[in-house]
Every structure is written in structure tokens, then in C-alpha cells.
């Protein structure tokens, strides 16, 4: 199996001119993802998961280190990657259908073809009949599914997903998880998946990356090593719980050290 995605020694500092402070969001993140692999990232809130995803997408330039996709250094977003954003971020003046075709439009794909492709994914996320609704006419979970369809329709080699199912109820979530696994298997995609739900991470992934609290580092990478296709019932097996406990333990260590309060941003520059 070939390496699909490689993050090498990523450091990212946010500089805030208003307060003249620097905040180290990521410090020395290393991660290698194989072609066709499903990798999840978990970690305490504010540890830099979204930031890391943005760096991989090429939206933010790393302060240090580099990201490579297919052996080429990433300097900006490209059609080989697509993001499902943490907040749905739909264009409020576009209907569901026109939101889903947005990325295809950017690639210059003809309207008719774009719409046909969009239809398939709108259907898949269970929103057929809502094609001509505006985002404000949808529930939060429905908006999130449009966000998902908008990325899937791009048919990217690497899917970058930032808590895509966080706003869904348990049943819809499990349905979407299965759908995602089906797409992933069938289309041989590489997925980098952020979630707060540890069971979701284990159920979906080949490996789970645990981030430490800020500044984000890779604390540990856990091989799930369960056969595929997986049934939902694996979530009740002992080996599943064992992995869950282990990840919980890792995150808890961090939470304990932060319980006194979030670490303030770094001191002003001298």
C-alpha cells in the first residue's frame, strides 16, 4: 500500500495582532496515512484538530513542517481533497441542490452533469425532496448532511471530515456511518475523520489518532485491527470496549491536567 498523505513535523502558531499573543495550536504533528485507509482523530476540545485538518486541506499554511498528498507538497486546496466542515457553512442564498453543486461549479463542470451527480448524493444523505429548500428551512442535522453531500459529490481521493455527524441523532448517525463506510470501501477513498465520539472513531477506523491537549501533538496511535465489514454489534464486544477504555484513559490524562482551566494563550512576544 502506498502512502497517501503525510504530515511531517507540523507546527502551527496563530498570531493575534489585537493582543499581540501567539498561540501554538500544533506542535510537531507527524502522521502518515496509507492509500485507502480510514483514520480518525480524537482529542480534547481546542487541541487543534480542526486546525490540523485545515493545514492538510491547504487552507492554512503551516508555520513549520509540510504536508504531502500523493508525494506532492500541499500549498493550497485541490480537487484531490474535500472538507466536510465542522459548522455546516452552507451558502444561505443557495438552495440545497445549488449548495451541493458548488464545488463542481468551481471545477467548471457543466450544470446538467453537476446536477445529476448532486441528485445522487442528496438522495444518499436522505434529503431528496428538499433540493429546492434554503438552508434556513432545514434543521441543523439536515444542514450538516448537505455539508456532507457537498464534499462527497466532489469524489475526492482524500476526504477530510470534521465532526460530520455531531449534529445528528443516534439513528441517523449510525445510518450515515454505514453509508460512509460503504462509499469508502466502494470508492477506495482515504478518510481523515475528526470526532468526539470515541465509539464512532473505533467503529469506523483502521487507526485512531489521539491528540494531546494544546498544543496539539500526536499522543498515541491505536490500531483498531477489527475485520471488515463490521457490524454495528461489534460496538458491544469486549475487544471494542478494551480499545474504548484505552482511548478514554489517554484523553483523561490530558483532561486532568487541564481541569484547573484551559491553558491561556502564550505570553506576549518580547
Amino acid at each position, binding site marked *: 500500500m502506498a502512502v497517501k498523505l503525510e504530515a511531517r513535523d507540523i507546527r502551527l502558531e496563530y498570531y493575534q495582532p489585537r493582543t499581540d499573543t501567539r498561540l501554538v495550536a500544533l506542535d510537531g504533528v507527524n502522521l502518515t496515512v496509507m492509500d485507502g485507509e480510514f483514520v480518525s482523530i480524537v482529542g480534547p476540545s481546542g487541541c487543534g484538530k480542526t486546525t490540523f485538518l485545515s493545514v492538510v486541506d491547504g487552507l492554512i499554511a503551516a508555520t513549520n513542517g509540510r504536508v504531502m498528498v500523493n508525494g506532492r507538497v500541499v500549498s493550497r486546496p485541490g480537487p484531490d481533497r*474535500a472538507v466536510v466542515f465542522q459548522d455546516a457553512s452552507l*451558502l444561505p442564498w443557495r438552495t440545497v441542490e445549488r449548495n451541493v453543486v*458548488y464545488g463542481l461549479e468551481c471545477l467548471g463542470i457543466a450544470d446538467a452533469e453537476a446536477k445529476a451527480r448532486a441528485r445522487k448524493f442528496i438522495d444518499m444523505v436522505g434529503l431528496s425532496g428538499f433540493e429546492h429548500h434554503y438552508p434556513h428551512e432545514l434543521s441543523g442535522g439536515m444542514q450538516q448532511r448537505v455539508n456532507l453531500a457537498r464534499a462527497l459529490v466532489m469524489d475526492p481521493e482524500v476526504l477530510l471530515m470534521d465532526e460530520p455527524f455531531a449534529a445528528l441523532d443516534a439513528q441517523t448517525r449510525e445510518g450515515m456511518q454505514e453509508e460512509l463506510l460503504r462509499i469508502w470501501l466502494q470508492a477506495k477513498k482515504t478518510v481523515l475523520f475528526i470526532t468526539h465520539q470515541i465509539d464512532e472513531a473505533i467503529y469506523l477506523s483502521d487507526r485512531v489518532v489521539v491528540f494531546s491537549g494544546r498544543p496539539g501533538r500526536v499522543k498515541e496511535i491505536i490500531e483498531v485491527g477489527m475485520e471488515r465489514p463490521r457490524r454495528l454489534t461489534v460496538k458491544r464486544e469486549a475487544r471494542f470496549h478494551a480499545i474504548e477504555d484505552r482511548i478514554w484513559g489517554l484523553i483523561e490524562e490530558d483532561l486532568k491536567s487541564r481541569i484547573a482551566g484551559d491553558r491561556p494563550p502564550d505570553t506576549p512576544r518580547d
Partner: protein
Amino acid sequence: MSTQTVIGEGHVERPPPLVRWYAEHRRAVFGTLVAILFLLFWEGLSRGWWADALRPLIGHAADPLLVPPIFISSPSRIAAEAWRMFVVTREIWSDLRFSAMEYALGLGAAIAVGMPLGLASGWYRRLSYAVGPFLAGFNATPQVALLPLIIIWVGFGLAAKILIIFALAVLPIAISAQSAVRTTDARLLKVAHSFGAGEWHLFRTIILPSAVPFLLAGLRLAVGRAMIGIVVGEIFGSAVGVGAMINRSGSRFETDKVFVGVLVIAAAGMLLAELVHQIERRVEAWRPSV
């Protein structure tokens, strides 16, 4: 109370038709009523109805309630004068045509210059550094004070009127366009970048649509301010135009005519504002209606 509930039967009696009609048209009814009262009061002032009625009670203290028509005209005199100017002599039409033309050209130029300039300076930081001081300085200037300069530059003709209307209207348009771009939702910009939108596509699909409400708000302001330009621009050396007519009539104490001119401008301003409002409603169909 206009509705009665018969408790126990869960049956709501429908109010009588007149009450219902009132409930549905409350806004229009109130507006009309107040307007009629106002016009009556005005008419009475100029005809001395109130002064005559109160004189037996308070004597000469009632005198100020009679205001000669030369100061305030009266609704009936204004109506008669309007009828004469619009229908009998048809003298106002040439003024209207002239003013409408200068207005359209001035406002059109303000839109053509102000919008692109505002949008561009909202987007390109360097451009905003360059034009920022000009906009701020120009904004702090009472633009009508530029009139003498404009006359020196281009004389008394149509160009001067177009320029002053332009000067009055261009700022609200440019400034609102600029802030429109500045307040574009950063998350949507991120989405566009992530999907690889080119600069033009980004402008067309994100910046422009989210700027529309601001642009229309600026336009609505500009529509009103440009109306000022009609009157001010025609103060000097104009023979035709509604503003010139107002100025001329004013200097001759033809109060009725002044009022006709003012009302015509006010009506035109309201009409245009309503037009902009209608455009807003069309363009903003996607907005939640709260």
C-alpha cells in the same frame, strides 16, 4: 374586546364584519386617519377656523392660530395649484423631465463609480489604504459646499447638476459596498477557497450575494440624498427643473407652487425608495422571514 369566547362550548364567535375589516387594515386606517386630521388642521390654520373658534374663549391669544397662506399655503390651495400645473398649463412637465434626467444620470454615475470602487476597496487592502482617506475626507465635507467649485469647473449647465447629484449619492453607495465586502462571512470564504474557487468565482458566488443587502441599503440612502442634489443643484442659473421652479417660486412668495414642487420631490423619493424595497424583497427571497 372584539372577540368573545363562549366558555364551555369551545366556540369562538366571529366578530362583526366592520370590526374584522378594521383589524385587517389597522395600519392603513390609522395612517389615513392621522393624515386626514393633519390636513384638516393645516387647512384650518390657513383659513382661520381654529382662530375663529377659539377667539370667543381666549380673545386675541387665538390670533397666532390664523396663519396667512403666504406662509403655509393650504392643502386645498396646493391641490388646486397642482391641478393647474399638471393638467391645465402643463408647465411642470418640462421641469420634471429635466430634473428626472439629471437625477438619473447623476445617480447612475454614482452607482457606476461608487459600487465597483467600494467593492474593490473592501476586497483589496492596498486600494482601501489608498482611497480610505479620500472617502473619509469627502464624507466629512458637506458636499453641497462643493457647488461653487463645480460651477467654476463645468459652468451652470446640466453637467453641474449631474455632478452635484453624483457627489451627494456616491458616498453612501461606496461606503456601504466597502463594508459589505468586509463583513463577508469568513466561513463561507473558507468554503470557497477549499473548493478551489477562483477569485472571480469567489466574488460572484460569495462576496456579491452576501453584499446585496448592504448595497441596497446604501442605494436607498443614496436615492434620498440625490434628491437634495436636484434642489441644490438648480439654485443657481437654472431656468428649468423642479428645483429651479421651487427656488423661483420661493423668491416670489408663491408658496403654493413651492409646496407642489416639494411634494413632487417627496413623492418621487418615496416611490424610488419603495422600488428599492421591492428589489430587496425579490433578491432576498432566501432570507428567513423573521
